C-alpha cells in the first residue's frame, strides 16, 4: 500500500489500478452487451439519433438461443473440453517425468536435452503445422479428435517440462535424499514427497496447458473439417461468419460462453497458480 497523503494513494494506486481493471474487463463487458443486444440495435449506424454502443435498453436472449439451438455449439464445447483435457493430461504426465529427470538425474547430455526440448517450443506453430498435417494424414487421424490430442503435446510438453523443471529445481534436494534414507525408493520419494510439494507448480502447468489447448486455433482449423468435429475457437468463427456476414450477437455469445470454462478453472486454482509462478517452497 502506498504511504502518505491521500492524493498520492489515488494517483499511484487507485487510478492506475482502476484503469488496469477497466482495460482487462472491458472486452468481456463488450462481449456480454453485444450478445444480448437485439439485431435492430447491432446494425444501427453510429450517427443514428439514439445510438448507444455501451448498453442496451432491450436485452434479448435471441443470439444465445440461436447459438445453442441452431449451431453445434454444445458439440464444439464438448469436443474442446475432451481434447483440452486429454492433451493436458498427456502433456502433464510427460512434462512431470521429463522435468523431474532433467532437474534431478545426472546423465550424459542432460543439459543439451533440456535445451533441445526448449528449442522445439520456439518453433512457431504456423510453420510446424505443415509437416504435422502430413503426419496426421499419414496416420489417417485427420478430422478426428486424435489429430489434436496428439499434436497439442508438441508445444505443451516442452512448456510443461520447462515450467516443472524450474519448479523441481527449487525443491531442496535434501528432502528427497532424506526420504530415500527413510526407506523410500526414488519412485516413492518422487510420488510421496516431491509431487505433493510441487502441486502448485503442477497445477499452474496444467492450467496453462489447458488454456493453451482451449484457445488453440491453427491446428484445429487445419486438421478438422467436419462441423461435428470442430472445437469452439474454430467452430464459432467458421460457422458464424458466412462470407462477409458476421453474426455478431451469436459470435459474441459464443466467445463469452467459450471463455467461461477457462475463467472458471483460473478462479478455482488462483492461489496455487500464483504460488506456482512465484515458486514458493518453504521447508
Amino acid at each position, binding site marked *: 500500500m502506498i504511504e502518505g497523503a491521500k492524493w498520492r494513494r489515488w494517483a499511484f494506486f487507485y487510478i492506475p489500478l482502476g484503469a488496469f481493471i477497466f482495460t482487462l474487463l472491458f472486452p468481456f463487458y463488450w462481449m456480454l452487451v453485444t450478445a444480448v443486444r437485439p439485431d435492430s440495435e447491432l446494425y444501427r449506424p453510429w450517427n443514428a439519433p439514439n445510438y448507444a454502443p455501451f448498453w442496451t435498453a432491450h436485452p434479448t436472449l435471441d443470439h444465445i438461443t440461436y447459438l445453442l439451438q441452431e449451431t453445434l455449439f454444445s458439440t464444439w464445447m464438448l469436443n474442446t473440453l475432451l481434447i483440452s483435457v486429454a492433451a493436458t493430461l498427456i502433456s502433464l504426465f510427460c512434462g512431470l517425468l521429463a522435468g523431474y529427470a532433467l532437474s534431478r538425474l545426472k546423465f550424459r547430455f542432460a543439459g543439451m536435452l533440456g535445451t533441445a526440448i526448449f528449442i522445439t517450443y520456439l518453433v512457431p506453430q504456423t510453420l510446424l503445422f505443415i509437416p504435422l498435417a502430413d503426419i496426421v494424414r499419414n496416420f489417417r487421424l485427420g478430422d478426428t479428435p486424435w489429430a489434436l490430442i496428439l499434436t497439442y503435446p508438441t508445444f505443451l510438453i516442452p512448456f510443461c517440462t520447462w515450467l516443472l523443471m524450474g519448479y523441481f529445481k527449487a525443491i531442496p534436494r535434501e528432502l528427497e535424499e532424506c526420504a530415500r534414507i*527413510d526407506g523410500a525408493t526414488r519412485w516413492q520419494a518422487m510420488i510421496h514427497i516431491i509431487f505433493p510439494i510441487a502441486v502448485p507448480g503442477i497445477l499452474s502447468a496444467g492450467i496453462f496447458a489447458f488454456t493453451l489447448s482451449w484457445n488453440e486455433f491453427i491446428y484445429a482449423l487445419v486438421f478438422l473439417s467436419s462441423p461435428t468435429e470442430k472445437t469452439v475457437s474454430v467452430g464459432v468463427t467458421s460457422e458464424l461468419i458466412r462470407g462477409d456476414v458476421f453474426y455478431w450477437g451469436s459470435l459474441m455469445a459464443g466467445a463469452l460462453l467459450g471463455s467461461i470454462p477457462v475463467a472458471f478453472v483460473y478462479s478455482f486454482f488462483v492461489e496455487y497458480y500464483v504460488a506456482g509462478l512465484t515458486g514458493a517452497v518453504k*521447508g
Partner: protein
Amino acid sequence: MARVVIRDLNKTFDGVHAVKDVNLEINDKEFVVLVGPSGCGKTTTLRMVAGLESITSGQILIADKIVNELPPMDRDIAMVFQNYALYPHMNVYDNMAFGLKMRRFGRAEIDTRVKAAAEILGIQAQLQRKPRQLSGGQRQRVALGRAIVRHPKVFLFDEPLSNLDAKLRVQMRVEIKKIHARLGTTAIYVTHDQIEAMTLGDRVVVMRDGVVQQVGEPLELYNAPANRFVAGFIGSPAMNFATVTIAADADGLLWANNEGIHIKLPAEVASRLRKHVGENVTLGIRPEDLRVASSSDPADVAFDATVEVVEKLGSEILLDVKVGPSMMAAAVEPTVLAKVRDQLRLALNPDRLYFFDGPTQAAI
C-alpha cells in the same frame, strides 16, 4: 548398533579429487566428529556413508557388511541435514512416521515410537503442526526425532546446528550429547565448528583438502596436534605461529630466535629439536599459555610485545600484540590493565611450546 569401517575411500568429481584415501574405524556406540574447513571433503565422506554419493574407490562397511552398492534405504542409517529437510506438506507426526510407514511398520508400533521420540525431544505439543509453524530449534528437534524413531544402526549428522543461533546451538549440542548417551547409537557428525567437534566427539577426525590430518580424542588433538594445520584449527582463539631459527649456544643449550623472540628451550623439547639446529621451524604458542611477565619470570622465557587490540571478554582479556615481525594473541587475566600501544613483557610456559617442521609442517 554397529561398527562403521571406511577403507581407502576416494571420491573424484569431474576431475576434482575431493576425498583422498580416507581410512577410519568407528566403533560401536562411538560418536565421531568429522571437522575441517569448508571443501575439506567431510560432507562428501558422510554422504558416501549414507549412500547419497557414489564411491570412486575404496570400501565402506556398516555392521561388518560392505555397503558400497546398497541404496540408502537398505543401509539402516538415519541422517539429519543442515536445513532440517522436513517434508513441508506433512505435519510433525507424519514427518516422524514417514520412515516407519515406508518400512511397513504397524500403526500401533508407529504411534508408540513417534510418541516416545516426541517425549525425548519435548515436542509432544507440536505433533499436529506443520514444519513452517515451528521455530528453528523445534524444526531441528523434529529432524532429530525423525532419525530417532527408526532405531537405525548409525546416525549421520550433516552440520545440523549451523542454521541455529548461537544460544540455541549450545543448547541443542547438549541435547544431542544426551540423546547419544541415552540411545548409544553409533554416530558420525560433520561440522566446521571445532568447538562443536571438541564438545561432542568421543573422537575427532580433522580433515583438510580431502585428506585426514589426525584422528584422536579431543584433548589429544589439543595437546598433541600432528601438524600445523590441526594445531591452528583446534583451539579457540587459534594457536599463534612464528617462524624461528633454532640455534645452539656454547653450553649446548638450544634457543629459538627471531627478531622479537629469544627463548631457551627446555631439555625435553631440545632433544627433539637438536637435528633442526640452524634451520627455520614454526613455533606454536597457544594464547592461553601466554601471560604478562612478572619480575620473577626468567628472561629466557619472556619477550617484549606491543599491544595493538584489546578485546575484553569478561572472563579473560584477549590481547592482539606485535612480537617482532609477527602478530600474536594472548589470553590474559581480566585484571590486566593494558591499553592499545602499551609495551608489555609476555612470559610463556616453556613446557607448552609446539614446533613444526618448516617444509612439511609436521609436528616435531
